[in-house]
């Protein structure tokens, strides 16, 4: 501790020129980026028109969803892979395994408990709506998943428990469920002799809906797992300090 304080003091003495230099460097870099944006006259490929022309083949009517889950769906596949990896890294780095938040029961007011009970069904319905509306207007699996994750975290922070603890493998299966469904659809299209995630014609709408629905569950639980890992240890530390 003392060493760190001394280090900080030394730093405050010695670092008077460095921030100025750094600021100048960052400013120069910003000006360079701005100038390069102004001067480069690249004729852009009008991807919007291409997407608009191919939209009727995609199974959905929202261009962003079409790009995310049809035209460039391998991006989304890898992105969900990153999410699953992050969730498992966080789970393996923390000492307590499953999301069990136990805030002090005395500090939870009755207003909070009532409000959470009122809000949770509304938020889950909003999540479902966002999932369903994603095919024609802004929305989709990630938005729906984050709303549902917020509802679950509110529940956990208000002292309620998620019924996911009992079989130990249940949470892990649900965490990877969306990714597995997406991956098996991708492998299925390859085995059918098409290119990766090239949906069979006429099936794309229903396949996108299935993938998004399973992804919503997985994303919600991954976000809860990623957040709750930290809160657990904090409450435990606080309890140990109090003792």
């Amino acid at each position, binding site marked *: 501790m003392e060493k760190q304080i001394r280090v900080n003091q030394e730093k405050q003495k010695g670092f008077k020129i460095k921030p100025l230099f*750094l600021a100048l460097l960052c400013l120069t870099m910003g000006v360079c980026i701005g100038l390069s944006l102004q001067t480069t006259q690249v004729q852009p490929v009008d991807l919007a028109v291409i997407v608009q022309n191919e939209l009727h083949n995609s199974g959905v009517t929202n261009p962003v969803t079409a790009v995310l889950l049809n035209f460039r769906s391998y991006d989304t596949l890898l992105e969900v892979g990153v999410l699953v990896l992050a969730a498992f890294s966080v789970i393996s780095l923390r000492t307590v395994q499953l999301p069990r938040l136990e805030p002090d029961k005395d500090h939870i007011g009755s207003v909070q408990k009532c409000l959470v009970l009122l809000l949770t069904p509304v938020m889950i319905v909003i999540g479902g709506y966002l999932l369903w509306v994603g095919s024609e207007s802004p929305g989709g699996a990630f938005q729906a998943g984050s709303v549902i994750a917020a509802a679950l975290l509110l529940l956990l922070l208000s002292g309620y428990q998620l019924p996911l603890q009992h079989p130990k493998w249940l949470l892990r299966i649900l965490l990877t469920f969306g990714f597995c469904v997406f991956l098996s659809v991708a492998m299925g299209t390859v085995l059918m002799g098409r290119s990766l995630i090239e949906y069979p014609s006429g099936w794309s709408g229903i396949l996108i809906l299935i993938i998004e629905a399973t992804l919503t569950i997985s994303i919600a639980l991954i976000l809860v797992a990623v957040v709750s890992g930290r809160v657990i240890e904090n409450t435990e530390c606080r309890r140990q300090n109090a003792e």
Partner: protein
Amino acid sequence: METMSLKIFYSLTSIALFGIGMYALFAYAHLLRKILAVNIMFTGISLFLVATAQRSSDSNLDPIPLALVITGIVVLVSATAFAIMMVCKLCEKTGMTQLPDEDR
């Protein structure tokens, strides 16, 4: 013409955000500040992508930068969670919130 100047305004704001984030990334030794700096840099990049999503045609937004931003947000969230977890572990093991080679 008005949308054009708005686009330039957003682009300049995004460059400023990127620069501020980069400055914070280099200037501060505390790892949590570095994580926040990366988040601010990402905000600049995504603002730039969204600002340039409307390019040549008047009506159609280019959906590909928007999809990239959505993908990027998710990757940023998972990377931030992992990084914060690593910082917590580092703090737990060594009691330091910065990397040892930074205390010159």
